[in-house]
């Protein structure tokens, strides 16, 4: 047992740092650090650079274009990337649908979809939630009816993150309406260009367009787009959710946010001195930083244990709760750090490259918005209450 990095791991960290220093575009890093919006083009530009290095899909098996990294290497990469201001990986393709295709897909599906994810040709979004199926995901109603070589899909998905950029969507659809809840569900890949699909924006409380509604009206989907067996889609969904949760602790992102908080608190003033020298504020930062230290250690332990024996279990639910609470607490302090300047709503000043008069600081306009936006963390990916139900059932057997 040793928490110090080995010399090989330190060498790997240096390699990652050098890569980020040389390859991460300065404008993108600057946007990330200031909390500005990233365009589709920003994400794609960074993805191409990672792909060229062979580091876009570190979790995949090597034969599909992944890496041989262990848990510690992945952690180092995530942490260094977040510290450098690299955009977070949009997970829907590389970290969500791809693991399902690798685990449950046919050889044809692997050969077709995986290279297109690596190259950035396909941008995936997730078709899970519905207006009537949130935390109770298995109550979903979107229907897929077999008609010869096709399924005819009708229904509505919602909260589709960055669906406006996507050309593919993976969906949970009901193929057997007679079967009990989870049993009649299938996992279907759908081309967004298929006639009958409509994407409508949902503007979130911070004024942002991040999520969408997706409507399906007699959408014809070829049967070869089914992943796994018909009516066994819930197995894929569960597998994916466990994969999703491990990353949901968001340690790298929280550490980056913590650095941002310290920068902001060093610049803002209270009682004629930097806010970070205010005992009360400083103490609150210290509390969160210690919680973050614990969550980082827990992540390493769980991921390391999982890399020995497969998929992480319900422990990742505990981390999802802890990690999201920490991130929310950081955004709360960031909002409070600017006092009354949390109030002005200045969408144009939030954009990168804004050249007008700056009301306070370049970082200030987005802090309240980010605080509200981050309320989503404890809701998505299985709400924190659902995570507690999972722990209660799977670990405690209550």
């Amino acid at each position, binding site marked *: *047992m*040793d*928490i*110090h*990095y*080995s010399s090989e*791991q330190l060498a790997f960290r240096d390699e990652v740092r050098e890569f980020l220093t040389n390859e991460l575009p300065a404008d993108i890093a600057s946007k990330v650090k200031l909390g500005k919006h990233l365009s589709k083009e920003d994400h794609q530009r960074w993805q191409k650079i990672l792909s060229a290095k062979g580091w876009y899909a570190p979790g995949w098996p090597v034969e599909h274009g992944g890496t041989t990294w262990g848990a*510690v290497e992945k952690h180092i990469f995530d942490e260094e990337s977040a510290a450098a201001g690299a955009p977070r990986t949009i997970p829907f393709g590389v970290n969500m649908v791809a693991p399902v295709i690798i685990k449950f897909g046919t050889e044809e599906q692997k050969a077709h979809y995986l290279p297109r994810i690596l190259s950035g040709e396909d941008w995936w979004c997730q078709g899970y939630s519905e207006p009537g199926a949130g935390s109770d995901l298995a109550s979903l109603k979107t229907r897929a009816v077999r008609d010869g070589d096709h399924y005819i899909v009708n229904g509505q998905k919602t909260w589709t993150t960055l669906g406006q950029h996507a050309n593919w969507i993976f969906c949970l659809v009901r193929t057997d309406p007679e079967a009990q809840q989870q049993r009649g569900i299938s996992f279907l890949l759908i081309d967004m260009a298929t006639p009958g699909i409509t994407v409508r924006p949902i503007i979130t409380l911070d004024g942002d367009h991040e999520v969408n509604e997706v409507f399906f009206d007699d959408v014809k989907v070829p049967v070869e787009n089914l992943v796994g067996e018909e009516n066994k889609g819930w197995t894929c969904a569960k597998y994916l959710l466990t994969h999703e949760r491990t990353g949901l602790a968001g340690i790298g992102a929280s550490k980056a946010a913590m650095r941002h908080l*310290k920068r902001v608190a*060093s610049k803002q003033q209270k009682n004629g001195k930097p806010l*970070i020298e205010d*005992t009360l504020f*400083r*103490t609150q*930062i*210290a*509390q969160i*930083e*210690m*919680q973050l*230290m*614990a*969550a980082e*250690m*827990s992540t*390493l*332990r769980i991921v*390391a*244990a999982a890399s020995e024996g497969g998929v992480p279990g319900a*422990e990742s639910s*505990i981390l999802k*709760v*802890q990690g999201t609470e920490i991130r929310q607490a950081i955004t709360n302090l960031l909002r409070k750090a600017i006092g009354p300047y949390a109030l002005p709503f200045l969408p144009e000043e939030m954009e990168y490259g804004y050249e007008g008069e700056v009301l306070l600081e370049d970082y200030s306009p987005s802090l309240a918005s980010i605080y509200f936006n981050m309320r989503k963390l404890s809701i998505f990916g299985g709400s924190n*209450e659902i995570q*507690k*139900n999972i*722990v*209660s059932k799977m*670990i*405690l*057997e*209550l």
Partner: protein
Amino acid sequence: MDFKLTEEQQMLQETAERLVRDAYTFSNREKFSESEAGFSPEFWNQMGELGLTAIPFPEELGGFGGTGIENMLIMQELGKGLCLEPYMESVILAGGLITQLGSDAQKEELLAGIASGELQAAVALEEQQSHYDLCHVTTTATRQDGSWTLNGRKAVVIGGHTAGKILVSARSAGDVRDQSGISLFIIDPNSQGVRRRTYSTVDGRKGCELFLDNAKGELLGTDGEAYDAIRYHSGRAIAALCAEAVGSMRVLCDITLDYLKTRKQFGVVIGKFQVLQHRMVDMISELERATSMAILAACLADDEDSEERSAKLSAAKYMVNRAAQYVAEQSIQLHGGIAMTWEYAGAHYAKRLVMIGHQFGDDDHHLEAYAAQLSI
């Protein structure tokens, strides 16, 4: 970086686990606690016979060269059994201080005994006004004709009532809160000028107040330069207490979970109620945090002294204290009335978990310490 135990470490863990499981039934613990020693001299001897008391000492001094990891494994098992023996105080803390500061003669005289268990030592660092600040020392040490005389009062010396030797911090120079000018002395508690007022502690142990009235002390280390070593070895004590707390929390969570699965109200086991399920999950969540921080502390405990090490050990103690208190309070709450009784084992785990916070700094103390050094 890895989180695996070696084969030797696994064997050590099993040895400690077996020893504790066989000796420490709840009724045995009650007897040990009520005895004059306040712990089991027989269990202490067994620890010595099995080599557990020799674990952290260097091989050339008759030990096994164990590190913070080995200490963690032993302390966790002692925590699981709610053991009363002053292992941390004598072996880890006194032993560590003497190993670092002692002359060859002092090491020869004392360490063999501590490592075998024949000599039980205690450490007196706190005072009435110190409140975990170990450089706030008013006890004085004066030298005359090459011998040292100590005057003052040391507070809540756990294990001090039975100790064969006590290490005492006293000021030989400087102002009352200076880090410099603090020295460590070895005293014989049965010698002239030493008075002990022995008491039981809330968590079933025993300790004493130490009154020094022109008592004789033997200098340990360099005059006036003991504080760095005191801070360093307090860090090792903190790591040990974190591990002990994790062991106790784990058992208390198990006890509480069992209760949720057996106690019936309104016609069902109470573990069926979601509000109680989520509370239990919160307890497990705190336990996970504490476990991670105890591992962190164990891995850093024997690192070279540095501000980063001190800060992370403060973070560990802060998080573990908070978790321990949470688990203790919620465990009592989830049990209801039964956990309010002396005869219920869970209540004693709860008491120890809260009292661990009163040794080497509570959550407020370590929050303040961590915040003060916060790196920008």
